[in-house]
């Protein structure tokens, strides 16, 4: 009995220490006011004044501010749009690759898997910097296109949303490939043979059998790409232009440029609430899948 209790308590303590406590701190700052102080907000908790006086100073003013200024909801919407589109693009690129890997001869698969994972051994920042070198006006891509004679003057790709999509798809497609690959690899080939024997064309068999059976992998991959993309900061700030509006960038600006910790915290709390919806959906999907397997 005791052992069971301890076993259950450990993950909960983990959650408490690494999620709930930091969240409570951020939430508390979101309720305070910006001030010229160190750290730059007020009130700060003071044992002498007591908890009552402390709580009385807190209010939801910063959340009201978020609704009054259209910058924020535009940034949330724009982040959602960018996250949806990039998830879709990643799926478009990732699925055929995962399919190819799963269909490849058994002895090739570890090598192909290695090729997908290998870029992770290089720092993420360096890989994004490399894209800056590829996409800039004098970059490799434009040089190549001009050399082939396809275009006369360089295309402006760097510092636009296109560059952001390229960066996100490049960075996150392994997260899409891996779950889809593991779903496709387990797929029983005889089911497709059966479909074809029963008169399906290859395309129909793919659409009616392969896709539905890899659905769990697709859903898992989409969530793994969608969730981090929504709060992405590094890619839009390095590859995007000044009109690339993403909430991660707004959050950074609030914190580092505006030094407005309370508003930055309020933005973070709302972002978290936005993320909870897909995370809960993801959990339910995983659970259903597990139940189905049992």
């Amino acid at each position, binding site marked *: 009995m005791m052992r069971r209790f301890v076993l259950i308590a450990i993950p909960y303590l983990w959650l408490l220490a690494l999620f709930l406590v930091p969240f409570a701190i951020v939430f508390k700052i979101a309720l305070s006011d*910006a*001030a*010229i*102080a*160190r*750290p*730059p907000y007020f009130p700060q908790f003071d044992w002498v004044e007591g908890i009552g006086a402390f709580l009385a100073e807190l209010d939801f003013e910063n959340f009201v501010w978020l609704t009054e*200024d*259209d*910058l924020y909801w*535009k940034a949330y919407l724009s982040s959602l749009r960018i996250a949806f589109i990039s998830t879709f693009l990643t799926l478009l690129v990732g699925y055929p690759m995962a399919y190819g890997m799963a269909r490849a001869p058994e002895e090739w698969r570890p090598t192909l898997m290695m090729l997908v994972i290998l870029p992770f051994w290089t720092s993420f920042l360096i890989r994004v910097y490399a894209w800056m070198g590829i996409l800039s006006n004098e970059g490799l891509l434009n040089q190549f296109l001009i050399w082939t004679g396809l275009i006369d003057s360089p295309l402006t790709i760097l*510092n636009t949303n296109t560059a952001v999509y390229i960066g996100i798809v490049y960075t996150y497609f392994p997260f899409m490939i891996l779950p889809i690959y593991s779903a496709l690899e387990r797929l029983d080939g005889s089911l497709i043979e059966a479909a074809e024997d029963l008169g399906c064309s290859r395309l129909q068999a793919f659409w009616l059998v392969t896709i539905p059976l890899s659905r769990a992998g697709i859903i898992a991959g989409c969530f793994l790409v969608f969730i981090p993309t929504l709060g992405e900061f590094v890619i839009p700030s390095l590859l995007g232009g*000044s*009109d690339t*509006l993403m909430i991660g960038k*707004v959050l950074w*600006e609030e*914190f*580092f*440029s*505006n*030094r*407005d910790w309370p*508003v930055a915290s309020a933005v973070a709390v709302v972002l978290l609430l936005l993320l909870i919806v897909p995370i809960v959906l993801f959990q339910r999907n995983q659970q259903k899948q597990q139940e189905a397997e049992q």
Partner: protein
Amino acid sequence: MTLKTMTLTAIVALSSAAAVAEEVRVYNWSDYIDEDLLTKFEEETGIDLIYDVFDSNELLETKMLAGGSGYDVVVPTGSFLARQIQAGAFQPLDKSKLSNAANMWEVIEDRTARYDPDNVYSINYMWGTTGIGANLAKVKEVLGDDAPIDSLDLVFNPDNMAKLAECGVYFLDAPDEMIPAALKYIGEDPNSMDADVVAKAEPVLTAVRPHVKKFHSSEYINALANGDICVAFGWSGDILQARDRAAEADNGVEIVYNAPKEGALMWFDQMAIPVDAPNPEAAHKFLNFIMEAQNMAAASNYVYYANGNKASQEFLEEDVIGDPAIYPNEETLQNLYIKEAYPPKVQRKATRMWTKVKSGT
């Protein structure tokens, strides 16, 4: 050996190791010192110097207000320094450790006292103006020979900017510099602390924003020098550095700097010691080293900014002390304005306006 002696030996060993590896961490603006000075300091004092750079007062302030930055010497601009002093971010300087204090220039100290009363917390490192850097040939090609390169009209008149967009314009990513300039252009008080007056800068900035290639506070040095852009609204010495880099590269790019004739912002970068500096002793040594006349002159000769050190002036090269863009004459000096720190509510409005202007929403 008993446990006690072992522990003692360990403590002695550790503390002597710490004494050997004494270090001082300095956080200064990018492209803002002659790097030979850094080695010279290490040779003279035997202290390891760790030198990091930044390009935004806002970023520095975030670190100062969060505390625990780990730096011993930082270099905020006057208006930011004032706010950080108020927040309790700095320790008063121990003047007894600054034997070179007599070298400082009272003309500048009088002005910096507006931010740091009696100059208790800081010494002046460099000062300068914010103005217009132009690639002469390109600007004339676009706007004709009578292009207003010494006027705010060049960067705040949408007609001029629409044409300049072809060859590229960079603005500083610094609301505390750009908002006063926009206010000056429409004839308002650039140092206004009134939220309604500050708000008048927004339409001026929004009107020219589509023609600004990038808001950035350090990349314009190289961009100007390479000829990638033709106009930058930036800091005097940075633009003069661009001028020199272009001359060295001999790439046919000629850069000129002008403080706008309508009036230019005069700013002061001050060296100060954070209240939680790990090694204030070494920080004072670094300040005293910088205050030495020849060292300060070497720094100014290298970065083309004027300094607040009277004694250094005899060691300055003629193209520094004799250049009115660096050491303005009396007439230009009359035309310079200063900017104090905004109160918190106005600050929030100003920074929010800046975010909006930049993102174009």
